[in-house]
């Protein structure tokens, strides 16, 4: 009984980590950038959802759509203003820029909304209560979180595997120069990848805010770092890897909490990062790095 309940919580957290990890992994796959501003996009998404529900009194579905679109638009603007000018710069410049964007977003949020937490009206977005399935009580929020994440991931997989744009994303991510020779407009594909990653982050923001209904300028930091570890664990650049990594971290979190070590969670997450780098730097699904001659 307790085991099943814990498992569901683990899947719920894992779903959120997986959604966020996908954004890290896709962007890394295509521009070799660890986009450390990705977590802060989720924070902005939290505020968008909060004000859409409370100040603008939008119905939940509309608020959700506005949040996802808002996150997507923000990521595209960041990509155009901050990252596109650095397309041929060393990767390190790009990484430092991403850290700068992250700090900027947090500070702007603090300026606008203060550092105090705003409580998030979770049940204006998702229904309270629970459903009994086979004798187990499953909260609607957990059920919807898991289903919405799985649906997003199925949609992403179809996009990447079956559509022309998705195939172009894979081509650019494997060999940018050859993709250009196919007539693929590489900059458009990169922007599109950022947009898709941010849309998933927008879904993640909604689900995370329901789970932890307190929005602050810093909420994206640890969520982002955990999801980043999930992406590395799964094999950065790999889409199925990010999903697997997300669920592993989510289930692990439940175990850590069950062992009464919840204050150690971040330590455990970073221990995993160190272990991955020591034992299998390419992650679970990552390809071995081939030196090109």
């Amino acid at each position: 009984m307790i085991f099943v309940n814990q498992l569901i919580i683990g899947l719920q957290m894992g779903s959120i980590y997986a959604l966020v990890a996908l954004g890290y992994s896709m962007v890394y796959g295509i521009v070799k950038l660890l986009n450390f501003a990705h977590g802060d996009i989720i924070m902005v998404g939290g505020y968008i959802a909060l004000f859409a529900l409370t100040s603008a009194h939008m119905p939940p579905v509309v608020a959700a759509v506005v949040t996802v679109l808002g996150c997507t638009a923000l990521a595209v603007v960041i990509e155009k203003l901050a990252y596109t000018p650095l397309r041929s710069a060393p990767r390190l410049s790009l990484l430092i820029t991403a850290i700068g964007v992250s700090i900027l977003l947090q500070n702007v949020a603090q300026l606008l909304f203060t550092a105090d937490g705003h409580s998030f009206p979770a049940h204006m977005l998702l229904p309270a209560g629970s459903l009994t399935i086979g004798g187990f009580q499953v909260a609607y929020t957990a059920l919807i979180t898991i289903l919405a994440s799985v649906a997003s991931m199925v949609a992403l997989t179809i996009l990447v595997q079956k559509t022309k744009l998705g195939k172009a994303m894979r081509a650019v991510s494997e060999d940018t120069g050859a993709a250009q020779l196919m007539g693929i407009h590489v900059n458009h594909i990169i922007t599109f990848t950022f947009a898709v990653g941010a849309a998933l982050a927008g879904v993640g923001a909604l689900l995370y805010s329901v789970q932890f209904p307190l929005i602050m300028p810093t909420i994206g930091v640890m969520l982002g770092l955990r999801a980043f570890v999930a992406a590395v664990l799964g094999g950065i650049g790999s889409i199925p890897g990010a999903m697997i990594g997300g669920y592993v971290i989510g289930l692990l979190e439940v175990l850590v909490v069950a062992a009464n070590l919840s204050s150690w969670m971040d330590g455990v997450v970073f221990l995993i990062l160190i272990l991955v780098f020591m034992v299998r730097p390419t992650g679970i699904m990552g390809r071995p790095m081939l030196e090109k001659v």
Partner: protein
Amino acid sequence: MMLQVKNMNVYYGSIYAVKDVSFHVEEGETVTLIGANGAGKSTILKTISGLLRSKTGSISFAGEEISNTPSHAIVKRGLAQVPEGRRVFLQMSVQENLEMGHYTQPGGTMDERITEVYQRFPRLKERYKQHAGTLSGGEQQMLAMGRALMSRPRLLMLDEPSMGLAPLLVEQIFEIIKELHAGGTTVLLVEQNANMALTVADRGYVLETGKIVLADSAKALLENDAVRKAYLGG
């Protein structure tokens, strides 16, 4: 005139790689650029495709200036390149590679073009679902050529198609180039294998350290003493 390159000068940082190169390709011709490793042959093709830029001069393709056109737009105008080292997408299936070659083309023509490529390269049809990374070198070269043909290019540029292939496969690849030529495709062929290149080409240019040192009909180059000594093994 299909392609006219005038006074191309290309630098890699401080390295002067292509020095005032001018040449042309007529419609329906097969023209080859031959020269040793490092002579600047691939650099010239990359510059025509828009991956690199020339400091000076002009590149006109089918009468239009393309020296400032972005590479993705150049492909759309009908100029396809089979890059050095094949560069097929190893993690994608054979068929997906062909689809990428069709990227700039209107959607309705794809199935027909794929059928055409499979007719020319039946080997690819047998393996259409396999990842390109599992193909042999010769099959990858066929895939790279098939992928370029998907856009039905007016000018096909081939960069070292014989590189790293067994002699029998080299002959097969050149047989295909001859067929394409006979079918009316204009071809610009870059090769270190001067002997093979000059047997399929109409005309040739000899490059040495970034400069064109000789230009003549392929037949005359094959019989030229200096060319024989330097590139054809006596």
